[in-house]
């Protein structure tokens, strides 16, 4: 079956994307459409003493200037964080109020205080500049450690000391005791740099209020339109769910930043009702830097204890996580259940303890970004392992192998139960593909050219397929994390799959169709995937955490099971055979071992004509299913980076990168490789290039591509990609997920390679030429002594 599971099928959706025919939110043109522009604070922290909109209102073509008092006055609710975390003393997290338009106070540069609705985008932006806001500046704090110092400016009244929560996982006393008794202790301080997600398509929204039906329609750049509708209805009081349709059409990348419901969508919906016009807003790139949720921003100190044999006896971690000025939708879960629960890594460790303090600062809200917590965990563990290997004088691969988990299921001390894996096998494949035996020769050859060549490993594990609803509910999640699907077989045999997953670059239109083709023997061109519209798909939890394959496809498989059962009933009746003898093969529904068969479309037609169905069987051929996963899935792998450093300039090149991943079942190897390529590129970006910078007054310094460096083609090598598959035992297709692995596994591999090359471990991300050169100056050893 050339188009089924495992086939390298070209992406169906690429025809429209590469010919410029994709239909994105900003391509939507409504009749009677007006444009929104936001008036944003230039101050990181200030009281709003007054807003004078008279000059803007007087401009020809300005329809309205609306502010936060009017918004809250109309009953629009505050923006919430949907995952409740409880501090270790039992107190609930301190969530400060976040109004879509600020009323009394602004808390970060870019915080919106008013919106201008005008006849054109240019006019709206011009008028927004004419709105005069009287700010009374307050002292600001941008850095998480500074925000915790006594006397730091307080950002929310109900978060004393800017502390949102002080949370822990694992056994503190047992871990301390294990480390105290260790033969060797490795200590490490790492920062995980703050990143801007930078999807290719900026955020956008088009909101239309239909007064005759009291109904709203919102086109928006969302990874989860149903969640958006749920939150907009239940918490922001925009409209009840049956009066609100949310459509996320083609979406050009998200990386997490389009999970959340932002002030702009809420404001556009409300402004449409206020003005009786469709209201469109599209972010420009500079606005995106200033308002899209950022990622990461951790400061961590950690200790790992080893026995005399190199076995890990305890791992103790203390992390401070910068949340920015407000708690974004899933912010609270990222440095807790998506981070600390992965701190056992691929290793058999009896004692792990992690303490996390989440803090407010006067910066853009921080939330999940490709990997979400797992990159922070992996970076810490894998730098720790490499550092320990150097200190212990052991081969970094051998130290890892000595500690790898060997049998499954394996329960870690941080509440995860790994279901399957082959960590030695991953490392074997990576080492072979990286031609590790030849590394000394490569290093010598580089030295002859005056370059320092280094090698670094990273053995990552992550948790995907989020998540069993009851489990996450018990941990504070405000939603269940199942997925839904509907399979509609048409009378002519073509198939529509309605899914709650959302594709914003992942290629679902192809991979999902491949799974259907495998099952029913129809060509993938006869299968269409419908997603992203709350009026078409009943419900869905959307796409993030690499969950579309493991959770979304599992729901489709469940619905296909039901369709198959009905197909067999119809065929058995028509062909006068037993249901148990019916098989679906090669586009036909057959009686096994005979030449009796119906074509696939003949079964569809029979179902819809209803002329000759078994007694009591309903006409039609359409089934739905909800799938709730029973566990997370655990993709894992081994990455090996090789770099060359120019010691005179610090300029560093990643010259070789090998990825050996275990993603479980692979539906389309080409698409999976694409996901690894993109993820590793973002990982290299984090390791060497990307950094959101605030000055100490909370001014965003990196507000454009002049100052924020994204990886370009020349910054990344040709990758070597291997797979070492163990099938996930907990979902019907055996899928683990592949969307985030590259971004999780790559940063420590790169940094370990650079620190190997330069001979000092004192290096933080991003390893810019300046950072690498500065680190080199501290270890200048007299060459003559060698």
């Amino acid at each position, binding site marked *: 079956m050339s188009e089924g599971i495992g086939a390298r099928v070209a992406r169906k959706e690429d025809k429209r994307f590469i010919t410029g025919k994709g239909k994105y939110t900003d391509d939507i043109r409504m009749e009677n459409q007006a444009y929104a522009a936001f008036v944003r604070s230039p101050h*990181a922290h200030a009281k709003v003493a007054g807003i004078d909109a008279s000059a803007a209102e007087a401009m020809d073509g300005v329809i309205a200037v609306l502010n936060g008092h009017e918004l809250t006055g109309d009953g629009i609710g505050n923006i919430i964080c949907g995952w409740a975390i409880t501090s270790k003393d039992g107190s609930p997290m301190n969530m400060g109020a976040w109004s879509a338009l600020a009323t009394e106070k602004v808390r970060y540069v870019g915080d919106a205080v008013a919106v201008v609705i005008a006849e054109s985008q240019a006019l709206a932006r011009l008028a927004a500049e004419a709105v005069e806001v009287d700010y009374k500046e307050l002292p600001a704090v941008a850095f998480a450690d500074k925000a915790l110092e006594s006397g730091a400016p307080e950002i929310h009244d109900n978060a004393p000391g800017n502390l949102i929560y002080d949370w822990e996982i694992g056994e503190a006393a047992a871990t301390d005791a294990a480390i105290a008794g260790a033969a060797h202790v490795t200590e490490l301080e790492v920062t995980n740099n703050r990143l801007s997600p930078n999807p290719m398509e900026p955020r956008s929204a088009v909101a239309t209020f239909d007064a005759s039906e009291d109904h709203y329609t919102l086109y928006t750049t969302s990874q989860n339109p149903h969640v958006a509708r749920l939150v907009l209805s239940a918490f922001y009081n925009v409209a009840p769910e049956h009066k609100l349709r949310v459509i996320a059409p083609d979406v050009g990348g998200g990386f997490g930043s389009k999970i959340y419901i932002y002030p702009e969508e809420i404001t556009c919906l409300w402004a449409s009702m206020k003005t009786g016009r469709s209201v469109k807003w599209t972010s420009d790139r500079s606005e995106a830097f200033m308002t899209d949720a950022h990622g990461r921003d951790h400061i961590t100190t950690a200790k790992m204890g080893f026995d005399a044999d190199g076995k890990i006896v305890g791992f103790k971690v203390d992390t401070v996580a910068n949340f920015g000025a407000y708690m974004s939708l899933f912010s609270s879960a990222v440095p807790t259940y998506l981070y600390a629960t992965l701190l056992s890594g691929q290793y058999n460790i009896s004692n792990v303890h992690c303490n996390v303090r989440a803090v407010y600062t006067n910066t853009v809200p921080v939330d999940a970004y490709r990997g979400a917590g797992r990159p922070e965990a992996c970076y810490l563990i894998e730098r720790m392992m490499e550092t320990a290997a150097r200190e212990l004088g052991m081969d970094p691969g051998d130290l890892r192998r000595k500690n790898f988990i060997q049998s499954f299921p394996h329960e870690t001390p941080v509440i995860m139960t790994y279901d399957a894996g082959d960590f030695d096998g991953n490392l074997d494949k990576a080492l072979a593909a990286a031609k590790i035996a030849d590394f000394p020769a490569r290093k010598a050859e580089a030295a002859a050219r005056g370059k320092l060549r280094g090698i670094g490993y990273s053995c990552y594990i992550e948790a995907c397929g989020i998540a069993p609803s009851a489990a996450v509910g018990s941990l504070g999640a405000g939603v269940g994390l199942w997925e839904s699907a509907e399979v509609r077989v048409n009378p002519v045999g073509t198939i529509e799959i309605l899914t709650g997953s959302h594709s914003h670059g992942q290629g679902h239109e192809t991979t999902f169709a491949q799974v259907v083709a495998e099952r029913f023997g129809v060509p993938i061109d006869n299968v269409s995937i419908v997603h992203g519209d709350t009026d078409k798909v009943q419900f869905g939890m959307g796409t993030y955490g690499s969950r579309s394959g493991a959770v979304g496809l599992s729901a489709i498989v469940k619905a296909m099971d039901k369709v198959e059962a009905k197909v067999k009933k119809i065929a058995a009746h028509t062909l006068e055979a037993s249901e148990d003898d019916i098989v679906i093969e090669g586009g036909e529904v057959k009686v096994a071992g005979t030449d009796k068969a119906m074509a696939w479309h003949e079964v569809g037609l029979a179902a819809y004509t209803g002329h000759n169905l078994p007694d009591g069987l309903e006409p039609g051929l359409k089934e739905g299913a909800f799938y709730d996963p029973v566990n997370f899935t655990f993709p894992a792998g081994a990455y090996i980076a090789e770099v060359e450093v120019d010691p005179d300039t610090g300029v560093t090149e990643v010259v070789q990168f090998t990825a050996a991943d275990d993603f479980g079942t692979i539906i389309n190897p080409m698409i999976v490789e694409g996901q690894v390529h993109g993820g590793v590129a973002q990982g290299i970006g984090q390791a060497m290039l990307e950094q959101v910078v605030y*000055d100490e007054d909370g001014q965003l310094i990196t*507000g*454009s591509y*002049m*100052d924020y460096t994204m990886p370009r083609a020349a910054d990344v090598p040709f990758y070597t990609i291997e797979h070492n598959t163990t099938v996930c035992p907990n979902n019907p297709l055996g899928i683990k997920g592949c969307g985030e692995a590259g971004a999780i596994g790559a940063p420590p591999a790169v940094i370990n390679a650079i620190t190997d090359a330069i001979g000092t471990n004192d290096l933080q991300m991003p390893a810019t030429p300046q950072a690498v050169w500065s680190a080199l100056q501290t270890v200048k050893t007299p060459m003559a002594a060698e």
Partner: protein
Amino acid sequence: MDMTGEHRISAPREVVWHALNDDAVLRECIPGCSELEKKSDTELSAIVIQKIGPVKAKFAGDVELTNINAPESYTIRGEGSGGVAGFAKGGADVTLEEDGGDTILSYTVHATVGGKLARLGSRLIDSTARKLASQFFDNFQAHLNEARPNAAE
């Protein structure tokens, strides 16, 4: 932004001091200055149009002079708003020292910028400030030369 500098001005200290306190001279010499009004002996308001990297804006600002120790030194404190382009605020300590018939003017500036100016122009602030300072002193010297042609010889 922190910046220090020193300029030799070919004029006696008294002349330099008076010129620095003459609103007409300042209006003429400050690059991009379209309006400058002396509100009192120690307070000025000004409008300056400047381009810093990709940000071009009209800054309306107020300036206050303190620590006046004529003709040797004073402190300038100012704050300017460029509307949506952001804001700048800061101060400078200025001292004048006699050196023969010339005057050595030295200054220490500390300034902060915010909004779009910080977001898009931060990297360019230092070099722009240096360029503007050097333009100002060129203009200032030219003005003094015109006013006292002999002094330029």
